[in-house]
């Protein structure tokens, strides 16, 4: 055996070792959800939540289907809002001149790296004052504000990549500045819009904290908030079967989604960071 194959073997061994917990995790979800905990037999009894409301450790939660609908509505709304706000903002930062642009840009960067979560106590009170607690609007606004700086930053990178020639051509060909944005620049940055849509969707789909904090009605929860109610109820989980079954139902679609879009996740770069 040559040293080269030996080396490869060594690398594979290490990587497999590191990856084992993750594979174990995936396997466990499937097993825990589909096996009876006591008998070890295959059963779908854990999936009874499809038909009846969940009752677990004294928590009674509504039937899952309206929650699924909430999740989808909430996630797509977030994607819609984040795309429709971040794309024009990123365009302005990348391509237009305006007074205060430098300062605004620096502030955007500060916001992007500054953890908004540290301001959650005051945010809560502002929502109370605006009567937005226990409304979707409140959750949406806080969630969108939190993730927008990152989205704007990614989108700005995509707009920066658009050659000026293309925009010049559009202007000469009869477009206004806005026309060039709509007809030429936006089609050009579609891959970027796709990328931020994926990130937005995953972020929204997994959002449980804001629902725990701001939503008090169980029938307004999304799947993440729904599961959070069950997971944080007791320190110790009593019925893994039920929770993993719901978890599997909740996670499988995005894992499939992820496998198809995984290239997008490698595209995130350091952008303007020095010497990278």
């Amino acid at each position: 055996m040559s040293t080269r194959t030996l080396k490869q073997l060594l690398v594979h061994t290490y990587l497999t070792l590191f990856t084992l917990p993750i594979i174990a995790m995936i396997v466990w979800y499937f097993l825990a959800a589909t096996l009876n905990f006591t008998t070890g037999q295959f059963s779908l009894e854990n999936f009874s939540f499809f038909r009846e409301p969940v009752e677990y450790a004294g928590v009674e939660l509504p039937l899952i289907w309206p929650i699924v609908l909430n999740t989808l509505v909430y996630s797509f709304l977030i994607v819609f809002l984040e795309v429709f706000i971040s794309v024009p903002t990123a365009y302005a930062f990348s391509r237009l001149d305006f007074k205060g642009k430098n300062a605004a840009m620096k502030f955007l960067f500060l916001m992007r790296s500054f953890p908004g979560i540290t301001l959650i106590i005051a945010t809560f009170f502002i929502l109370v004052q605006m009567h937005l607690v226990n409304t979707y609007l409140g959750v949406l606004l806080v969630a969108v504000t939190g993730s927008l700086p990152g989205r704007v930053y990614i989108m700005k990178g995509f707009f920066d990549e658009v050659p000026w020639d293309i925009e010049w051509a559009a202007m000469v060909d009869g477009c206004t500045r806005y026309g060039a944005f709509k007809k030429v620049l936006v089609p050009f940055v579609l891959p970027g819009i796709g990328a931020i849509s994926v990130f937005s969707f995953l972020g929204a789909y997994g959002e449980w904290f804001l629902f725990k904090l701001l939503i008090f009605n169980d029938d307004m929860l999304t799947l993440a908030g729904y599961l959070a109610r069950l997971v944080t109820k007791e320190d110790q989980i009593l019925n893994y079967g039920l929770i993993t079954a719901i978890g599997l139902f909740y996670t499988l679609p995005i894992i499939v989604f992820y496998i198809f879009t995984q290239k997008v996740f490698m595209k995130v770069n350091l952008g303007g960071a020095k010497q990278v």
Partner: protein
Amino acid sequence: MITLSNIVKEYEGKQESGRAVDGLNLEIRKGEFVALLGPSGCGKTTTLMMLAGLLKPTSGDIHFNGKLVNHTEPKDRNIGMVFQSYALYPHLTVRDNIAFPLRERKMPKREAYERAKETSRILQIDHLLDRKPSQLSGGQQQRVAMARALSKDPEILLLDEPMSNLDARLKLDVRDEIRKIQRKLGVTTIIVTHDQEEALAISDRVAILNGGRIQQYAPPHELFNHPVNLFVASFLGSPPMNLILGQLQESGGRQIVLTEGFEYELPAGRRLEKEHMGKTVRFGIRPHDISICSADQPGSLRMKVDLVEHLGSGKLVKVMDPEGKLDTMIRLLTGNEVQVEAGDDIYVTFKADKFHLFDTENGGLNLTQHV
């Protein structure tokens, strides 16, 4: 007719501040093909961008047909433009690319497509209409860019280094074709290029720019034969003009240029005004205006051959005065039949009507030029 008067363009940025264009005057007649030629950073692209309306002059006026257009939007100028990168819209097919300017003018789709087809026929790309730009070769993309610029029947066609991304052979074909189409359509055309051969070959008049100013604006042959100043003389021509440092002197009714390596008497017909005597000048002569001759020919100068390069069509001979005192070597062109080798002693003469004398001050003014 296009008139640029006293155009100044100042940039104020952290990195690049200063004047890109510094008092530029230019007049272009209807249907004329004009080239803006100069080294990079000379302001030629900035000038083109101002013509397109993508940049606004800091001061000065731009008139199209007598109408002030300084602040007219690009879309209202009726110009077509071809960019160095072609700038095709990657998400549109060739047909939609060509029809784009027409659709922006609210032309109905069917009519726009019809026009796109016609234009594409002129440029021989009508078989590519359904492709996307990414499926085309560089030459094809260039044609599509031309078609897009011409489809709306522009009054002015602006070309920004349109051929610099093509390979050498294709460049020649495209150059001829652009010229032919321009003649046929009679559209006023301005091309920006740093390739002098291209500029001289394609255009009616060439404006040579340097430092944001026009150095000379004239038909190609005049630029070549009568450069107004040292910059134009040294910029044009390949191999470049020999420019030898010397001093003008007058003694006993003779006017001579005294250089470190030789003495040249100005022929009777080309004597200068007395006021120029004593000036330090550059004696300029193009390589093909120097010929090898026999020792007994009057006015011949002895030179030592330093290097011989074979160009294929002839030989480029680099010579030095026998003592090696000249500040630069003198290049001359000869036919392949002439036998010269490095180390040879030869005699050369300058064509009496072809040399120039450039002042070393006063912007390098050509003293032999009668203005």
